[in-house]
């Protein structure tokens, strides 16, 4: 619509004024951050000297079309009240001196009894150098948070997850993901949730940090 008359022109600032008055404050969704970044960065990258944080979200970076692409790559849709496009992701860029040496990123993943916070430390090639569950509520949480479980993810990259179906929780027999052992058979759903979280995390890192280099 083109507004050409004088009263119409006066309408535009008036509409802005009314909108500014009428629109309620917007609450942002909550993301997933390291509880103690100084300590955690040093633990995951002992050689690091500093880090920077980068805040991104699907809503801001590409909206619905990007969300659809991410869901397509994940093989599952974003679900529920809290897995939405406006979730802010905090990505930590890790430095040694002035050199970028890697990244840390965490995602919230719905678990059996609560939110699971799945963190990955990646090198510059997008290879997992550490897998870390910051928070998990389950009787067997200790086993899934054990470094021995996390070690199974070291060296994996996003292409390793290509054949993993998080909706069914099924890995291609003989694949590197199928080789990951669940240390807590009583917590199968949280084990699968951790795998989904890791795949989602890698996809988001590819989108926001690696410019989609792992897109098939």
């Amino acid at each position, binding site marked *: 619509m083109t507004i050409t008359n004088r009263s119409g022109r006066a309408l535009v600032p008036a509409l802005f004024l*009314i909108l500014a*008055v*009428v629109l309620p404050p917007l*609450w942002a*969704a*909550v993301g997933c951050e390291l*509880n*103690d970044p100084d*300590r*955690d960065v040093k633990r995951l990258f002992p050689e690091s000297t500093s880090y920077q944080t980068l805040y991104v979200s699907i809503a801001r970076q590409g909206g619905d079309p990007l969300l659809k692409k991410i869901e397509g790559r994940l093989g599952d849709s974003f679900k*529920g*009240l*809290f*897995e939405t496009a406006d979730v802010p992701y905090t990505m930590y860029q890790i430095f040694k001196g002035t050199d970028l040496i890697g990244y840390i990123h965490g995602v*919230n*993943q*719905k*678990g*059996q*009894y*609560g*939110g*699971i916070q799945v963190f990955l430390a990646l090198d510059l090639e997008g290879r997992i150098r550490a897998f870390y569950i*910051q*928070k*998990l*509520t*389950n*009787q067997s*949480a*200790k086993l899934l*948070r054990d470094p021995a479980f996390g070690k199974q993810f070291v060296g994996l990259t996003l292409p390793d997850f290509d054949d993993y179906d998080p909706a069914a929780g099924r890995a291609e027999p003989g694949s590197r993901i199928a080789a990951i052992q669940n240390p807590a058979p009583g917590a199968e759903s949280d084990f699968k949730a951790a795998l989904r979280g890791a795949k989602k995390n890698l996809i988001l890192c590819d989108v926001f940090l690696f410019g989609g280099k792992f897109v098939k």
Partner: protein
Amino acid sequence: MKSKISIYEIAYKNLLRKKTRTLLTILGIGLSAWVLTSLFGFNQGYESALNKDIDNMGFQVLLTAKGCPYEAATLMLKGGTGLRYMNEAVFADILKNKEVEKITPMLMQAVFDPNKGESGGLNAYLGIDPATYPAMKPFLKFTQGAWFTKPQSHEAVLGYEAAELEQREVGDKILIPEKNIEYTVSGILTRSGTQDDGTIFVPIRTLQKDFKQEEKVTAVGIKVWKDADITGLENKLYELPDVQVVSMSQVKSTIMSLVSTAKVMVFSIALIAILIAMLGVVNTILMSVFERFQEIGIIKSMGAMPQDVFRMIWTETIILCTLGGAVGIGFSFALARVTDLLIRRLLPYTPTGSLVIVNGKLALATLGIVIVIGLLAGIYPAWRASRVRPLEAIRSEGE
């Protein structure tokens, strides 16, 4: 047949002769009437909204066992320790006081979760009475679900941020790891901007049983009657053994003084609006009288009595004020929402709910005030007109 022209008809036709001036005068009176109605509406709405907010505070006095943290944040700072308990027998002592409208018991418990963060963290649970707590906090709304289905069910209601952190939705389970007890989520609250956002609510009877604290509470919320003497009640509560009183009466008295300040401010502005309207009417009618000096002289020479001329001018004033008042009231009804939003933007603190309440009663009162102002403002011009001497007036043409 010869028709007789009434004085009212002349008054009405006079106004139509100078359409622009009449319209501007009506608009001026209309704006004053709008300001007046909106101010009265604001006065009414602001007080009622504040009272509602006070009501929504739920309880104005919180009674806890001496030394017991009464907020989850304080409990966390103390590392989940330091909880003190009161026996439920204290309810009878509280209810004895005539200032008390109702009470709601609460039980807070904290559990260490070793798998929360690198070195573990605390989860706090607030046991509430489903029969009294929701009624005291009617402003708590649900994004999903509702309060517990049964008073002793193993259900939980999560504040929005607690639900977001735990990625919980209605029907999901939460677990108290230390005790291996499961609760089913029955509701997720809408974000309220208060500490309720981070709270996990469970039925108090269930929590008492699960934590083996039967008949124990950590706090009692006390709602007092609207005009009750809170300070007097607090003094009486201090006499109970081993309790501390956390008062929110200061908040209430601050709010009430805000109401008084607002009233003084509103009536001062209303007075100014009335004076401006009055002067405007006097000016317009007087001008009209001076312009029609000769005409009034002719009317009188034709037999009109001074009281007829007085009535004619007064009628003009009343017509102007009635129309202006109606326009202003129309404005105030149509723009009440915008006025409300503008006031919200201008004032540093505004209560929730409608700030400007304009209703039929208020509209009629304003119209009455505007007409009375018109009658008063019209006295002098009408008196001047009634005093015109016909011969002097007719002669004044050539001067």
